[in-house]
């Protein structure tokens, strides 16, 4: 498993992206991360919760109670307009960062 410290700084962006794709609830987010990385990265609920909480406090996402098809309740998160803008900014930052590291380490 990859060192989680490296990912930590980008977790916000990752979670924002997942929520932009569609409204998701907590476990759905961690499950999707697990699936997409093919078990290479597993986010702990403790970490997930603190990131989500922070995003919500900053008004990047908001939560509402949704109902699954069989009637169980889930707290879903959806992106706000501010969140979208923030995400775009973060993505361009990431691209820039990637280029810099690439030019330095893979030269």
């Amino acid at each position, binding site marked *: 498993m990859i060192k989680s410290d490296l990912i930590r700084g980008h977790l916000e962006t990752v979670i924002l992206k997942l929520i932009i794709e569609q409204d998701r*609830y907590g476990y759905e987010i961690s499950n999707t991360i697990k699936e997409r990385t093919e078990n290479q990265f597993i986010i*702990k*609920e403790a970490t997930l*919760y*603190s990131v989500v909480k922070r995003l919500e406090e900053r008004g990047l996402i908001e939560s509402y109670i949704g109902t699954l098809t069989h009637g169980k309740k889930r707290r879903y998160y959806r992106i706000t307009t501010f969140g979208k803008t923030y995400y775009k900014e973060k993505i361009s930052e990431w691209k820039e960062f990637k280029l810099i590291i690439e030019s330095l380490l893979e030269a």
Partner: protein
Amino acid sequence: MKRIRNFVKNTFKNYPKEEREKLIKSVTEMLTEKVEDLVENGYLLEDAINKTVTEFGSIEDFEDIKIHKKRFRIKNLSHYKNDILFSIVSVIIIIGILAYVNLYFKQVIWFVIPSLALLFWPLSMIYKYLNRKGSEKENRDD
């Protein structure tokens, strides 16, 4: 589900009150959702709860939310000096009263005995002060 709630409660027991209730509520909610999902995917309730609890991580994974550890007051040398001063003044007052009562009623000289015991208070304060002073000097020398 009571186990989940207890687990969360226990995890955040050191958080300040104002934040704690809300925190426990929402984390419990999130973990309960997970347990429900796992059960739906074929886990036994017991196993689902175990899995959720072990995968939660520790309080250290709870990054960036300020962990409000109780800040202990760090005593420095002047605090210890104040302790000594306080104990000395108190002891003088108490011994004074005892002596006054003793002599006023012209009894046998008994006040010396409780006074002796009382003197151990400033004595221990001085001991602590010197101890602290010594260890600080040691730290400086390093």
